[in-house]
C-alpha cells in the first residue's frame, strides 16, 4: 500500500500555558487517533522534531549560506510528522482530516512518499 507523510505545521510556543488537565486531554485525543490507526494497521511511524532546530542551508553563487529558520510567532514551523499507509490519496486525506493536530492555527501538509522500486536487473 502507498505510504503518505503528514507534515504537522504549527506556530511556535503555542502550548506553553496549557494546564495539566488540558495537556492530558490533548494527549488522550492523539492517543485515541493513534490507537485507531494502529488497530487498522495503517500507522508506520512518526516523530516529533526538536524545537528550534530549523536552520536553512542554501547556496548562492556557489557558496553555502546558513540562516536561522522562521522564528516569528505568526509563521508556522514543521513540528513533527506521521507516516501512514492508505490505499489512495483520498483515503490518506480522510486519515489526516481526523488528526487532532488540526486545530485553529495549525495545518497538515500531506504528501505521498515515492516508493517506486528500482527497475529489476536482467
Amino acid at each position, binding site marked *: 500500500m502507498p505510504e503518505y507523510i503528514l507534515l504537522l505545521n504549527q506556530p511556535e510556543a503555542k*502550548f*506553553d*500555558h*496549557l*494546564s*495539566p*488537565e*488540558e*495537556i*492530558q486531554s*490533548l*494527549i*488522550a485525543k*492523539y*492517543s*485515541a487517533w*493513534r*490507537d485507531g490507526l*494502529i*488497530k487498522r494497521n495503517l*500507522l*508506520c*511511524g*512518526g*516523530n*516529533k522534531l526538536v*524545537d*528550534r532546530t530549523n536552520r536553512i542551508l542554501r547556496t548562492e553563487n556557489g557558496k553555502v549560506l546558513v540562516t536561522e529558520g522562521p522564528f516569528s510567532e505568526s509563521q508556522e514551523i514543521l513540528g*513533527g510528522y*506521521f507516516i501512514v499507509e492508505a490505499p489512495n490519496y483520498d483515503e490518506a486525506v480522510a486519515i489526516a482530516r481526523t488528526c*487532532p*493536530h488540526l486545530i485553529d492555527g495549525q495545518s497538515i501538509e500531506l504528501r505521498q512518499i515515492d516508493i517506486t522500486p528500482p527497475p529489476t536487473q536482467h
Partner: protein
Amino acid sequence: MTEPTTIPAPTQHPDQPAAQSIDQLVAHLFRREFGRIVSHLTRILGARHLDLAEDVVQHAMLQALNLWPFQGIPNHPKSWLTQVAYHRALDILKRDRRLDFCEDEGELELKAQLKPRPFHPPGEALHFTNEVADEQLSLIFVCCHPSLPRPASVALTLRVVCGFGIAEIARAYLSTEIAITQRLVRAKRTIRDQNIRFEVPGPTQLPDRLEAVLDVLYLLFTEGYAATTGDCLIKNDLCAEAIRLTTSLAENAVTAQPQVHALLALMLFQAARLPARTDAAGDLLLLEEQDRTLWDRSMIHKGLRHLGQAAHGDHLSTYHLQAELAAAHATTECFALTDWEHILTLYDLLRQMQPTPVVLINRAIALAQVEGPAAALDALESIPYDDHGQRYRLRHAAEGEFHRQLGNLPQARTFFQRALSCAQTDPERRFLERKLKSLQKNALRRDDEAKGDTSKGL
C-alpha cells in the same frame, strides 16, 4: 536555545508502534501528578525552590505533549513525567551552580534518586503512600502560611498542590491571568524571603498554622460551592479538591484535629446537596424545592462520621457550628420537618463567634421560620451594609421574600429588583425573574379579587 534535557528513551521503536491504550491516563492523572512531583521536588530542594519545581513539572508535561502523540503513552507515565522533571531540575541547578560551584544537598539527593534505576525510579516504587501524603501536607502548609494573604494562598494551593492552570484559576475567580500570575509570583517571593520551611509544623506552631490552612481550604470550597460566577466544571473541581485536601489533613495523625473533622463534615454535607441544587434546565432550586432523594447519602454518612470525630476537645470552632447546621438540613427527610428552633440556636451561637453579614442574613432566614417574616425583616434591617456587593443579592432576595410573605408586594418587587441588579449568573437572574413574575401574578389576582369585592359591594 532551550536547555538540554535528557528524555527517557521511547519504549519501542517508532517504526513498529505497539498499541497503547489511553486507559493508562486515568482521570486527572496529570493534575494529580503535578502536585505530587512538585511536592516531592520541593521536599528535596526546599521551599525556596518552589518556583523551579513548578517550572520543571510544567516542562515535563509539555514534553509529554510533544512526544507521546508520536511515541505512544509510555508504560509508566508517572515515572516518565517524574524523570523528565528531575532531569530538567538537575540541568537548571547545574547551570546555575556555575556561579557558586558547590553542589547543594538537594542536588545530590536528586542525583542519587536518578542514578540507580534507569527507568523505574521515583515515580511509583520508591514512595510509600504516607510519604507522598506527608509531602503534600507539607506543601499545603507552605502555600497556606499565615504570612501570605489568603487570596494568594488560595491561588498558590490551586496551582502547585492541585495542579490547576493559571487560566483555570483565573476562570474560577473571575480574574485575569496576569493578576493571578502576579499573585503567584509575589507569594513565592514571600516564601523565599521569609524562608518558610517545607514541613508539617510541630505542636507549638500547629494551631495557628492549621487555622490558616483550614481558612484557605474553606475559601476554596465555598468558591466552588457558590453558584455565583465562573466556569461550572472548574467550580465542581474546586469542591472536590477542597474535600480531597481536607481529607488528607483528617488522615494525618498530627493534623487530624477536631476542627479539621468539623470542616470536612461541613464540606461533605454541603457537597452532598450539589446534585439537587439545580433543575434540569440548570436553574437554582431553593432548599425547600430540592428533591432530597438526590442528595448523596454516602457523603452525608461520611459527614456524620467526621462530625462525630470532631466532637473531641474543648474548642468549639465555627466549623463545628456550621457543620452542625449543615447536618441539621442534611439529615432531615423533608423541608417541612426542619427543626428551625435548633437551627436558630446554632445561628445564635455562630453569631457570637462570627457576626459577619452572611451569618446574620442566614440567621434572619431561620428566624423567619421560627418567629415569622416581620421579626426577620427587623433583624435584616439592623445588619450593617458592607462593601461586598455579592452579599446584597442574598440580603435583598431575603428582604423581598419576607415582604412578599407579609403581603407588601410593592416593597417585595423593589427588593427582588435590587437583588436582580446584583445577580451575577444566568441561573440567579432567572430565579429572581421567576420570583418577580409570580409577584406580578399575585398582584393581578389580588386586583381581580379586589374588583370582585367592590362589585359585590355595589
